[in-house]
């Protein structure tokens, strides 16, 4: 039985590209900002916005976000993209949000 199941393999397609891409644009961006926040929290410590560290934190938005934007197409569905990226946001933001 299990062999038969694996025969009906999931095949990736671009059917839900808009849902996947919009998740990567919106939640991918907030996740990216959260990751730069993590880096500041645990590596740089508090730094000013335009300090050298602050500039570096801004620069690394580009590679991280671009990576999320280009890999969003291998989520199995749009829903999965929103759920996974949402969960990642949900996990990281409480750590870094300045209460």
């Amino acid at each position, binding site marked *: 039985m299990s062999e038969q199941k694996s025969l009906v393999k999931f095949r990736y397609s671009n059917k839900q590209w808009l849902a996947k891409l919009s998740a990567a644009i919106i939640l991918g961006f907030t996740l990216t900002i959260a990751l730069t926040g993590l880096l500041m929290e645990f590596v740089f410590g508090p730094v000013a916005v335009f*300090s050298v560290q*602050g500039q570096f934190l801004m620069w690394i938005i580009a590679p991280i976000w671009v990576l999320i*934007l280009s890999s969003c197409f*291998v989520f199995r569905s749009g829903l999965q993209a929103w759920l996974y990226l949402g969960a990642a946001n949900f996990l990281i933001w409480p750590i870094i949000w300045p209460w």
Partner: protein
Amino acid sequence: MIRNDIVRVYREVHSWVGILCGLFLFIAFYAGALSMFEESIQRWASPPLKPSHITPIEKTQTLIDRVITEHPSAGRNFNIVLQSSPDRPGRMHWEEREPGADDHALPTHFYADLSTEGELLIRKEQASPVAQLIDTLHQQVGILIDHELAMPITGIVSALYAIALVSGVIILLPTLVKDLFALRLGGKVKRMWLDVHNLLGVFSLPFHIIMALTAVVFALHDPFYGTQMVSIHADKKVPLEGPPAVSPPSENAPFYPVEKLIGKLESSAPEFSPDILNYRQTRGPKPKQMLFVMGKDPKHHASRPRHGLVSLDAYTGEILSTEYMPGQQEVLQATVSSFFALHFGNYGGAITQWLYFFLGLAGAFLFYSGNLLWIEAKRKQNRKKSGFRSDHFLYQLSVGVSLGCIAGISAVVAMAKLAPGAIMNVPAQYNGLYYLLFFVCVVWAFLKRSDAKKNARNLLYFCAAVTALIPLASLLSALGLLGWNHGDHSIWVDLVACVFVTAFCLMALKQRPDAATSTQRANAKQRTESPQALSSTLDS
């Protein structure tokens, strides 16, 4: 091994993002390649200033005082030029903008010197807006609208470009070794274009990754910083480091003597050769004085286009900050600076400049070949369709936009010397001339569908003719009929224009309608091998 379905997903992604951003990127890369020589182009296009007696360096303070008495506004931000050159023909230089104009508007340049009798001579330069136009076309991917409005568009195009790079690598990976070095010239047209596209793409991939990521930041840094300010920086009350400025010790205190300043710098950083001293005041009721020394260090890359920076106390000559000074930077600062340097190509001197120029042109060609591949693929699908055909439309659009951009830029550069009076030195008029040529070419490309190939050939000849006006203008000037020639690095503009004219003519010859016969001959060879080849021959 990457699964087939994933490769197919990314093939679709690649062709869609490619088609969306390809032509914008063509313009950005063509203009960007030319902007590597923006100083030469600017020089070529600007009339020479009357030569003047350069004030001796010891009299700099007198010069500054005299200028500020007559033009108090100049004191807010002026340059002392250490090595005067035809680009900077005076000891003191400052810029003025129309009231209310933003930072991207073109300034008027003023140069001041003292004559041998001690008179103050101020000359106003009518710098040609040509170099600025090329730079704006590059930054705004060919869309000449307000800078603030254009930047989000550039940002989107750059992000699509980055996605195109990632997806392009993914679809090439499974067959990388097999396909990369196979340049199957003379085979099927599509196969050949695909090989060229892959070869160019893989070998300039590091360059393209750098360009895509830095372009995303250059276009979107305001929203990026803005988001971080209200989120991760929201509660951290880290005071912003003020600019490296000092209050004047007394009113009208003289600056630290320039000749001593240079000596001081030389002893602390012998490798750094200063070019320009930039004196500027902070805003506010009690302005503080800043002094930045811009210069070059051939061994290190610089953080700003073509310059490194060090800031000094204007009254004592002490070094305040070397944050941007080449070779004196902390690791992280050097990393951030390298992001700029890698985009601008301002490291490694002339070799890098030429390398970036060719990589830029190759990039433009990469995007053009991408469009051709899409057209070839669609042509097969659309073969039996009548009426609107997406492949015809994209072919005509690609030809019109890319050749329109080329003709527009050439015309604007040539016009600067051919008729400096007819077209005033007003950016709007240069923009108008560029767009006139651009849209003429686009309309021309769409004129008659059955003549698309013929139009492309004629447009290439047209580009060659317009570009030929550049060396022609210099030739006429050499004969004394008009304008000026500087006889310095700006001669490269003429030489490169000649090479471009030749290249456009060669491409036009390749485009002649009977060139199809060579394709047919190549296809005929394959006819026996695959029935597909036959149908594509019939179609073309």
